[in-house]
């Protein structure tokens, strides 16, 4: 390969920068190359905002107490100007912020890191049957009828609770009547108490990697056979999924005096921390900007070129963004080294990003359905004399309608997966449909299948690579990799050899060599 020297210098320069950043992160920050030798750490950020009334302010926020399978390893707050006190007793913790004078919009942060590990200090909360609520009048009859009905179909306290939740999924007349006065979670607790089963509502936070602006959900906690159980009154989630019990004492999550309009939103991020102990954990985690720039913490400052020095909210965004170069690199390789043709250069990467949200099967089926139906509709429009912009717009509107239709149908069929189809890039899909339709008219269905298949193949490959746990770990923790990607793309861009598929195309020349 003939390369001009300045070009090779650039490539070598990028490789050196990338490698040294990676080595630095590995040896100094202690980030391992494989996700396996790590703890999983959930960082949860609660952002409380409210408007102060130009008066002394006192805000009390419920904090998660001991958890069965999560151990708190660090917690931080950011509250400029506020005094902070933790109010703890054996089962409850609250943060109390106060300030003499404040006005306007105030924002307070609480960040805690939880390591996934069985908590030995955790003692199951004990609570007894609250005095059975008194259902009045017609409610009494409904409650009685319901309890009698499910008592017949259940074997023990736990199965009774499950049956009760199932009843609330598809409410019959008596259940609907009960639901008029109170939410399902409260009614379930009341009915369980009525049946002498200790139960109460708790506020839980479902942990989902990279989730932002989440809110707390009300779940039902009950004691059956001297075991504490946690049930989702909506029946959607199982207690085995990662979750954090935020508040379990029937107290409010936020108490605010001297302000109004308090809102709380949660962001969370799953991180992999080296096993080398809590010191390394905090070294990495403390980079999080809270009370000032990272240097204020005496950390490694600018040299620590990691995304981890950003607020959690932005870190989650970057976790996805940093994967895009992987997909782009794959497209470059597929086109210049393999020679696959795709419709729309980087369309497969966007489709792969959509697949990441929907799961592969739903994504592929959704893609095929949308493009297939879109092609049918487009072939109808092509019978009319239409200008290009108008036709493309019609295709976009059709794609929106198809998305709406499929979402409704799949929801009716009980497939909530179908709702995720809206994550597809609609404009890009419309252009794909338009281009494929022209290709169909000009070159026939074979060309459409080759290009469409090529695009789908590259999209699936990108998805497989981008959703790989190891790839995610590396791209998120080693920013230096991006320089390596750049160098690789540069090298691909100057490759003058044959593409893999050209070996087949020009295969006839092999035999006439002699």
């Amino acid at each position, binding site marked *: 390969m003939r390369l001009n020297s300045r070009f090779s210098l650039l490539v070598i320069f990028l490789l050196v920068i990338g490698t040294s950043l990676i080595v630095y992160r590995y040896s100094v920050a202690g980030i391992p190359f494989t996700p396996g030798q790590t703890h999983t750490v959930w960082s949860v950020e609660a952002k409380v905002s409210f408007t102060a009334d130009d008066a002394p302010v006192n805000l009390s926020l419920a904090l998660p107490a001991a958890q069965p399978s999560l151990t708190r390893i660090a917690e931080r707050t950011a509250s400029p100007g506020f005094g902070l006190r933790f109010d703890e007793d054996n089962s409850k913790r609250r943060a109390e912020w106060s300030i003499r004078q404040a006005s306007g919009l105030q924002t307070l942060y609480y960040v805690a890191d939880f390591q996934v590990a069985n908590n030995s200090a955790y003692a199951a909360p004990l609570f007894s049957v609250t005095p059975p609520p008194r259902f009045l009048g017609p409610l009494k009859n409904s409650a009685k009828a319901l309890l009698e009905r499910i008592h017949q179909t259940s074997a023990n306290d736990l199965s009774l609770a499950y049956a009760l939740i199932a009843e609330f999924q598809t409410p019959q007349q008596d259940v609907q009547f009960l639901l008029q006065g109170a939410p399902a979670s409260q009614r379930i607790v009341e009915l369980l108490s009525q049946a002498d089963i200790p139960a109460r509502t708790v506020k839980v936070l479902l942990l989902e990697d990279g989730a932002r602006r989440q809110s707390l959900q009300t779940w039902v906690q009950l004691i059956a056979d001297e075991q504490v159980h946690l049930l989702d009154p909506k029946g959607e989630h199982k207690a085995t999924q990662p979750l954090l019990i935020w508040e379990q004492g029937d107290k409010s999550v936020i108490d605010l005096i001297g302000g109004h309009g308090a809102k709380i939103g949660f962001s969370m991020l799953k991180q992999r921390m080296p096993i080398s102990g809590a010191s390394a954990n905090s070294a990495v985690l403390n980079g999080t900007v809270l009370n000032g720039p990272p240097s204020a913490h005496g950390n490694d400052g600018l040299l620590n070129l990691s995304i981890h020095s950003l607020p959690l909210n932005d870190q989650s965004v970057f976790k996805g963004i940093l994967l895009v170069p992987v997909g782009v690199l794959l497209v470059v390789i597929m086109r210049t080294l393999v020679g696959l043709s795709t419709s729309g250069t980087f369309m497969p990467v966007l489709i792969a990003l959509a697949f990441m949200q929907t799961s592969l099967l739903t994504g592929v089926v959704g893609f095929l359905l949308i493009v297939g139906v879109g092609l049918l509709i487009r072939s109808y429009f092509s019978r009319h*004399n239409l200008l290009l912009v108008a036709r493309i717009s019609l295709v976009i509107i059709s794609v929106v309608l198809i998305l709406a239709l499929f979402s409704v149908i799949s929801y009716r069929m009980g497939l909530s997966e179908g709702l995720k189809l809206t994550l597809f890039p609609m404009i890009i899909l419309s252009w794909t449909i338009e281009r494929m339709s022209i290709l169909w008219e000009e070159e026939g269905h074979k060309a459409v299948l080759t290009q469409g298949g090529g695009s789908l193949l590259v999209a699936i490959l990108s998805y497989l690579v981008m959703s790989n746990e190891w790839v995610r770990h590396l791209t998120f923790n080693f920013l230096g990799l991006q320089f390596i990607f750049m160098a690789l793309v540069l090298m691909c861009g100057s490759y003058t*050899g044959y593409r893999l598929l050209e070996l087949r195309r020009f*295969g*006839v020349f092999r035999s006439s060599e002699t």
Partner: protein
Amino acid sequence: MSFALVKPDVMNMKRLSLFNHPLASPIRTYRALHDQGIMGMNCRNLRYIARYNPRRLYPLVDNKLKTKTLAIEHNVNVPELLSVVREQPDIRTVQSVLNDLNGFCIKPAQGSGGKGILVALRAENQEEGQPVQWTRTNGKPLSRNEISRHLSNILAGIFSLGGRSDVAIVEELIQVDPLFQQFTHEGVPDLRVIVFKGLPVMAMMRLSCHDSHGKANLHQGAVGVGIDIAQGVAVNAVQHGQPITHHPDTQQPLIDLKIPHWQNLLRLACSCSDMTGLGYLGVDLVLDKHKGPLLLELNARPGLAIQVANNAGLLPRLQSIEALESIPASLDERLALLHHLY
């Protein structure tokens, strides 16, 4: 410089064996292609197109209207331009121009790869006093509505790169030279010449056939016949990337193909390269029954299939031209150079 036609049955037997598949031993195939100087897509794009074709000259060849104007300025023969449709209202008025013709050809000015070309012939049993009826080359009727819609599509930019709005050009039909009549089915055979730094490098005749639906593009199934660049005689022929010996529809032995006016065609190709200033150029020529060699269109990114048709790689020839110290200015000297260059 002559290549024997490879017998197809031998080729098919070799293809049947999975072990012999070109991708079964990619490194050996890679070496074999490299040794024969076959040019790949990446090499073409980087070494030749990016280096010898300045970007600012592309519009001259990507826009057929500009090519035509340029050709007329430089006395290069082209099919006669009948009309240009620039705006939607022109579509109505152009129909009256068409009425007096025996046939015409509509092309998008910025179309690529033969996209959007519509050929219309006057229907044979035309009734007196009735409006003119048109048919496609395959004999199927072509309504005025279809013609209007095609023109409208061209203006909207369906066939141009990136959907830019375009203009449609209406040209006279080319009368296929009777010599070629037996080698073609439905369409007009054209000659593709690769011209590098003003010197013809490789040539290929593209014959349309039933498989290609009258189109002369190799990837659409047309027959490609490699032509000896110095002599103008057939050396090899392929269809669908496989060697063939006879035209699939007319059964004519393709090795008999000898192109008349060869020197004139080469001269025309060289002048096209001179007028555009592009270093690496694909020139598409046709031989008209009455007008002789005509320039059909130019291509700044000519395809690589010409190597398969010629059963020879482009790189040795391109490299021997790159090794030349100077290239003579006169066409005659350049053509004389061809005889001892490759």
